[in-house]
């Protein structure tokens, strides 16, 4: 916490890098697990709950 207060710009820079890296890793892991196909199969069909049919 002390470092973050003393060096806010460096802390922010480090957090940004970590978050970008995390996002890339997450997307790759998710795509590898087949989550993108689950998203795709849901997105191309009419979502009955979304449009209020149930």
């Amino acid at each position, binding site marked *: 916490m002390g*470092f973050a207060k*003393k*060096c806010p*710009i*460096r802390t*922010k*820079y480090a*957090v*940004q890098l970590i*978050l*970008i890296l*995390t*996002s*890339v*890793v*997450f*997307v*790759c*892991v*998710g*795509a590898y*697990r*087949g*989550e*993108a*196909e*689950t*998203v*795709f199969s*849901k*997105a*191309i*069909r*009419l*979502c009955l*709950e*979304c*449009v*209020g*049919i*149930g």
Partner: protein
Amino acid sequence: MVSLGKFLKKRNSVQIFAAFLTNIHLPNFLKGVLYNGKVKRLCVPGLNCYSCPAATGACPIGSFQAVVGSSKFNFSYYVTGILIFFGVMFGRFICGFLCPFGWFQDLLHKLPTRKFSTKRLKGLTYIKYGILLTAVVALPILLTNKAGIASPYFCKYICPQGILEGGIPLSIVNGGIRATLGALFTWKLGILVTVIILAVFFYRPFCKWICPLGAFYALFNRFSLLSYHVDQHKCISCGKCSRTCRMDVDITKNSAHTECIRCGECVEVCPTKAISVRWGFEKTAEAKKTTNCEKS
């Protein structure tokens, strides 16, 4: 680091363009069918129902619930990764510039009626975090049927965007859908009408109080590459920026406020040009100034 001051002045044009890109298959409204190309594997940055006939990509909130609510997964790395990426790149700039439902509320608020402040309703801004945690994350994970499948609770019971973009246009052109509408449609239509009425009198009520996507991006305003800066040497504390802000933010007190949608109105009204907008890493001149911070 890129300065974005001039870009902010074209906000309405950017919003129109973003809404068009997010819903590029406009002829599908007449056909009553959904686009089903490969791009729908990707999530769009704003709140945009994938059951909108014109939708280009998948709604991130709907996609997250679809994955965690499926029998195969309990968490979506894919959608969370995409959302973190959007968040760290832009923060709530997405709400201000790229979200079609945000733009829709902006248009409603332009109707010439008396407008009301939401400054005394700041406590309601925490509702959206509760909705994110419960309706989007917890319930689809925990409340499943025997097959391990859960409903997309936020999309089903709260989100008015599905009715606006999907339910209403599809029921107009498709008699089969029209015949199946019942109590759930009426409930969601009631929410949509309430949001529309509120948006005429209050600025962006859905974004401020309800939207779980806005809640997620709000967490990234502090760390996003797109950032606001207030030059304290130039600031004359006139208060024009906080009086102008319709999201009830005082940018001079906290330039990374969670409610700031980066609309740029404070930048435009500042008489001394003390507020600037930048996109990129800050590890440049300012970082060099603080290079000895470890030693101090």
